[in-house]
């Protein structure tokens, strides 16, 4: 057990080291959610005037979307990095190590969980600086937990693709998957204001529950009724994609 934890810790450190060693690769991922939040709130701020809009201003409403996007981008980046490791042969050497496959996956996914806090922190600093109201420590802690969970699910999803295609050219597939999952929700407006077709997708998209779980503290009070669906949705996503990723690792032929 202690060896497993040390392996997970080493792989997480390796993932985090990339931020310092290849900052040019990390910066776009850190900036993108903030740019997206600023851009959307500049362009669509007037949407908050629609009858039935549940927040005082659009920027407050859209901040949680940026946090989830950051988690999604981080998860996709984890898959892209894994694909690079596969191309360069590092992953093959890793698979020769006497470590259990779920432990190796936990190390890769664990680094994504921590890395996703970087774009979220940058986004929140900018947002609070621009006047987004402070949601409280409890709501922020819950938001951090939920985006870490989403980053884990996105990293597992991207890992499945990286193991399947074994090339960085699968990057658009990883990015599009997380992009769709986060935006085809109640990202822009409350459920009641969505077009019928998008409402139907948002209703069956588990990420909608995660988004509402993160958003609740920004637009109102944190309630158990909005929290448990988010936790349940995340548990399901991590379980499904985690199982697929472990299966993919076991099929690597070592």
């Amino acid at each position, binding site marked *: 057990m202690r060896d497993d934890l040390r392996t997970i810790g080493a792989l997480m450190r390796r993932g985090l080291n990339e931020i310092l060693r290849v900052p*040019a*690769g990390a*910066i*776009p991922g850190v*900036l*993108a959610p903030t*740019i*997206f939040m*600023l*851009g*959307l*709130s*500049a*362009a*669509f*701020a*007037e*949407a908050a*005037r*629609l009858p039935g809009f549940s927040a005082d201003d659009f920027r407050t409403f859209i901040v949680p979307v940026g946090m989830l996007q950051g988690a999604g981008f981080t998860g996709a980046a984890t898959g892209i990095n894994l694909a690079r490791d596969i191309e360069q042969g590092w992953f093959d050497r890793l698979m020769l190590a006497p470590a259990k496959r779920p432990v190796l996956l936990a190390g890769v996914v664990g680094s994504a969980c921590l890395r996703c806090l970087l774009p979220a922190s940058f986004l929140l600093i900018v947002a609070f600086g621009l006047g987004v109201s402070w949601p409280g420590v409890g709501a922020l802690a819950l938001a951090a937990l939920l985006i870490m969970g989403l980053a884990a699910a996105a990293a597992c999803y991207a890992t499945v693709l990286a193991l399947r295609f074994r090339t960085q*050219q699968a990057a*658009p597939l990883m990015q*599009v998957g997380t*992009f*769709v999952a986060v*935006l*085809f929700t109640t*990202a*822009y*407006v409350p459920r009641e*204001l*969505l*077009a019928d*077709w*998008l409402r139907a997708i948002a209703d069956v998209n588990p990420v909608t529950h995660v988004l509402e779980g993160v958003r609740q503290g920004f637009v109102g009070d944190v309630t158990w009724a909005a929290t448990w669906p988010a936790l349940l949705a995340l548990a399901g996503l991590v379980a499904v994609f985690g199982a697929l990723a472990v299966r993919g690792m076991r099929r690597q032929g070592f």
Partner: protein
Amino acid sequence: MRAASVALARRALRNSLRRPQFLAPLVLFPTLFLAVNVGGLEQTTSLEGFPRVDGFLDFQLAAAITQSLLLGGVSAGIAAALDIEGGFFDRLVACPTPRLAIVLGRVLAASVIAALQVVYFLVVGMIFGASIQGGVVGVLSVLAIGIVAGTGFGALGVMIALRARSASTVQGIFPLVFVILFVSSAFFPANLLSSPADVVAAYNPLSYIAEGMRQPIAFGNALRPLLEGLAAAAAVALAATGLAVLSLRGRLRQA
């Protein structure tokens, strides 16, 4: 020089078509973004001050085309940077190829891809219920502005590639595409943008390019927006091509 430019353009197009994974994001991301914007914000057409349109899709189509063309510029830049990284550029320079053709070939290829992007979005828009109010003349107007703008964005990408010489650096400008686009009136009417985006939008050429294409799609043919759109696109194309040629000269001097 014309033959060399066409030959290099054909090579660039062949390479793009051989790697559809690089072409797909040019239309995939803007299509998804278009879908989310229309599905999420269609009720904003009822806001006071929003121009009268048949649907939000009609209004957003020009934004999606502009976004796609910008991504086309990034893609042209990445392709040029990969040529530099892979050594093809050095071999080209060692040949008696006219220097200007190195830039013009890549820019010409970008203009062909831009035409395909515009056609794709017009077809997708019509399939999902958009109507081109300007008819055939309107379609030709959108194509004209789109091709000239796509040429300019392609030249900008090539210019950045010649300066950066690294595909990953060119890739890094991807978020900037969104910044420039969001501070224009591409996505929402200029009178409904929040400050300071509304001020920046008034000077942003992308506003005129997007509105020039939007006019025939959503409102019908009108000369002034068309000319403003064409002028903005032509200004971007001329300036970017000039800068790309200067960057090429600078790079050749260093070599």
